[in-house]
């Protein structure tokens, strides 16, 4: 069973980012084929140097870094979304593959289920 999870929301403003991660980690217990896509404001979840101590919130970045312990390694980020937000790959903390939207769409067709947050 293959699952694609699309992260479209910025972290901290809503709980979407954390809830998505909970789902990814849970899903990884049931199947090897979990892919994560970061699109739109979701790319902000990947920014390094997040210090959430004053917000009393879980640090999204630290949690994302735990992904590879769960064997979730297929991580993709949208090049258009990065460009619109003046971000470069170097500013991102995780090892992600940058793809244009057309290729992301193509990859999605290779998954049985697609969820988005």
């Amino acid at each position, binding site marked *: 069973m293959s699952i694609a999870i699309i992260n479209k*929301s*910025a*972290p*901290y*403003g*809503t709980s979407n980012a954390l809830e998505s991660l909970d789902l990814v980690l849970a899903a990884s217990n049931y199947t090897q084929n979990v892919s994560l896509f970061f699109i*739109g*404001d979701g790319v*902000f979840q990947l*920014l*390094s*140097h*997040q*210090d*959430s*101590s*004053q*917000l009393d*919130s879980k640090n999204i*970045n630290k949690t994302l870094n735990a992904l590879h312990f769960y064997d979730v390694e297929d991580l993709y980020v949208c090049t258009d979304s990065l460009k*619109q*937000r*003046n*971000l470069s790959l170097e500013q991102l903390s995780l090892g992600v593959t940058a793809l244009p939207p057309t290729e992301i769409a193509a990859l999605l067709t290779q998954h049985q289920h697609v969820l988005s947050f």
Partner: protein
Amino acid sequence: MNLYKLKSSPFADSTVTSCLAMLTAEDAVVLTQDATYALQDKQCLTLLSSKTNHIFVIQADRLARGLIALEAIKDVTYEEMVELCVTYDRVISW
């Protein structure tokens, strides 16, 4: 003199840009929560600064998101935010 309090990302919806039409030079804007992502939106920042010099960002929100401070946009603590709210005639949660 109004203090416009913004909380949504300029990339996610048009709330921030829709506020521009209302701004006068005496008004202030405080970027809170996801509106702090305006720090990554050069176009948005240029438009905002063309309207007013009084642009603030909640430091805790900026730090949490890993965003770099800009000179034109002053960091405020929660205490300073309270002072801003008291200084301005009204707070408009936009």
